[in-house]
């Protein structure tokens, strides 16, 4: 009867362990840090009503994207995928091999402490993740997000470039750096694209740029 009570502290410990290894100080040169580029596909835009459909991530170490550690998880839905399936190309029948969201989040906590997280337009991904952590772990881990969209916006503003309406969409950002464009709305492809964009942004910054600088730009 009290089994759920026993389980909870273990998960809670994962968060504590994650938090125990902090990401490098804000004054650290950004090129030396470890990152995890992450992307979520969801059934909608509201973290409270909608669900995570899939999660993709790729780590960056030493300014290199490590594809052997790239991951993509389909998440078992609490309800039918429904309407937004067309949008993501994920159907109920594909979900046989899907993972429990709690297991995926646990893996993330276990493997990527001490990393900075990267996402393109991170607000949404962050909201979904935080809610899920709260729900399954009873605590939200301290994750620091760098937003490639905001960095791009900041830099274009600074250069005085007049932006078209969708200039900051991921494919358009990639095209500006002449980077290959993946199929969109696939969590892993988008996480990879986001990682590419970040590598380029990092190279286009001065060599000693710090995490603090990037966090300012990605506000």
């Amino acid at each position, binding site marked *: 009867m009290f089994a759920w009570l026993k389980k909870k502290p273990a998960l809670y410990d994962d968060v504590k362990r994650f938090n125990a290894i902090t990401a490098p100080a804000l004054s650290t040169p950004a090129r030396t840090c470890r990152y995890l580029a992450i992307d979520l596909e969801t059934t909608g835009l509201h973290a409270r009503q909608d669900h995570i459909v899939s999660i993709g991530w790729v780590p960056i170490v030493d300014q*290199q994207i490590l*594809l052997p550690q*790239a991951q*993509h998880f389909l998440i078992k839905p609490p309800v039918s995928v429904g309407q937004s399936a067309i949008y993501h190309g994920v159907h109920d029948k594909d979900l046989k091999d899907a993972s429990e969201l709690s297991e995926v989040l646990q893996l993330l906590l276990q493997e990527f402490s001490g990393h900075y997280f990267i996402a393109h337009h991170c607000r949404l991904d962050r909201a979904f993740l935080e809610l899920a952590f709260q729900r399954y772990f009873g605590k939200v881990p301290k994750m620091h997000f760098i937003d490639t969209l905001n960095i791009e916006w900041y830099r274009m503003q600074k250069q005085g470039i007049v932006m078209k309406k969708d200039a900051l969409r991921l494919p358009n950002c990639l095209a500006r750096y*002449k980077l290959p464009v*993946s199929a969109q709305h*696939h969590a892993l492809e988008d996480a990879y694209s986001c990682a*590419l964009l970040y*590598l380029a942004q990092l*190279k286009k910054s001065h060599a000693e740029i710090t995490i603090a600088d990037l966090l300012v730009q990605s506000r």
Partner: protein
Amino acid sequence: MEVAEVSKFLAQTIPFDQLSSAQQADTALQLSVYYCQEGEAVDISKEQLLIVRTGIYALYSDKQQLLTKLEEGDFYGYQLLLTGLADADQLICEEDGLLYWLPAAEFHQLRYQYKNIDIFFQRLFGRRLHQYKEQQGSRFTLKVSDVVQARKVAISGEHTVQQAAQLMTEKRVSSLLVEQEGRLTGIVTDRDLRTRVLAIDLPAATPVQQIMTPKPHTIDKHAYIFEAVQLMSRFNVHHLPVMDNDSSFGMITATDIIRSQQDHPVYLIGEIHRQTTVDGLEQCSLQIANLAQVLGKQQVPAHEAGHIITTITDALTQRLIKLAQVELGPAPCVFTWLCFGSQARMDQSINADQDNALLLEREPTAHIADYFSALADFVCQGLARCGITLCPGNIMASNPELRLSLKGWSGKFAKWIASPTPEAILKASIFFDMRAVEGSKGLFNALQHDILARTNNALFLFHLAQSTLQRTAPLSFLRNFILEHDGKQKKGIDLKKRGISLITDIVRIYALAQGISEVNTRQRLQQLALLGAIDSKETQNLSDAFDVLAQLRWDKHIHDLNQGHDASNLLDPNILSGLQRHQLKDSFAVINNAQSSIKHRFCKEV
């Protein structure tokens, strides 16, 4: 899980395209990805395979020599992986891009598992060695100035034969230049001393000028050795004074030449001039393909090879004319044997056909017409037997319309220039590159002078430019192949139609506008630069582009010959190295620029 964007790229990249899609996905999973910025030196010290995803990277040797440029789908690091030996190379990013790294363990596993992958990288390694060798290899073709030391031994004509003999003994030479006030007046050889002095018992006090060979044949210091060979064979002499502009520079002897290049293939020319039958010439011509291969092996640059091949065609023509005259008797009037097109430009390759004609001193009537008709038939058929195929457009001296007097030719050209119909323009591209192969130079000069006085005609140049602009260089050949089909051959870029002749055409327009008498494209460009008709940068670019294209075509022809095929101008861009692809792209860009210059210059006012 693999990133689809990455495995899709592998699926399109040789040699990974041969793997199953599961294996491609597996390989994609092993990579790490790096973004490289312009000016950055890529770290190539680790044992891993570099795969270029995007961007351009220049590879330099330890001597800072550019070896190649790497582009999408190119590799580096296989030499270290295959041999364990690192090169002291430097890889510098020239254009931002992405690099993939495949770790050593995965690279070797792929090699063991898939034979094709192993073979591919072994070959790449072999080619790379070749690339190094090519950089270091010395050019074989020598010039006269390379053989002759600037050690001129001369005597003036008033000196006695005895003094001459003493000088020759003292300087240990077999011949002397005879000069009067710094000008060459003759030569004297030890054979002359024997036959013209001793044998007929002339006194030792006889002045040199009495027994010398006056007005000897001479050769320019900058001429190729084989041209000296040709002169010696043609006139049966063994000594040629070497000239530097108008003053003498030294003497080249048959022995010098033999010593310098005992195995030089252009002795073929000498052999041609010794033949007394068409059968004999045909036998000689069988060696041309072999000669081309030797030239290819020795990496003689294309323009020199073109020069050599043309010289052989010239020699065959000259010899055939001689043989015809043995059969038909001496010509009833002075004539000039003309050649057009690539033979005239001295850039013939081994698949050229005949383009020739006759220029006659008198109107071709009655017995004159008969004589030259027989002569032309003899020569054209003879050339055909020697592998220089009959012209499909019938531009040959055997065509009676192309056996004309000076007046006849002049009228023909005047008509083409005055009323530039499409047909006339097409002819212009062939006939306006013209050279005398045999016969009277004076007659030829008169015709050329007459033509060049007319060619600076805006309407004519406008039409010539228009027709040149109809064909463009295939700039985007790397991404979307703009390829043409050629009945029996596979697809490829036609290096002649879409490259070399475009440059030839462009340069011809400028040359005709300026009244330049040179016909060789490189020489025309030099002249144009001297006259300031095109700015020197553009002439340099055109000249470089021309060399690149000519080289690719020549290499292709040699390759075809080695494979036992007919030489073809169609090039499959896939077989090119990164650097070659670069050069090819640059060359096409140069052509496009030059075409727009032509458009501005010649196509506006009419």
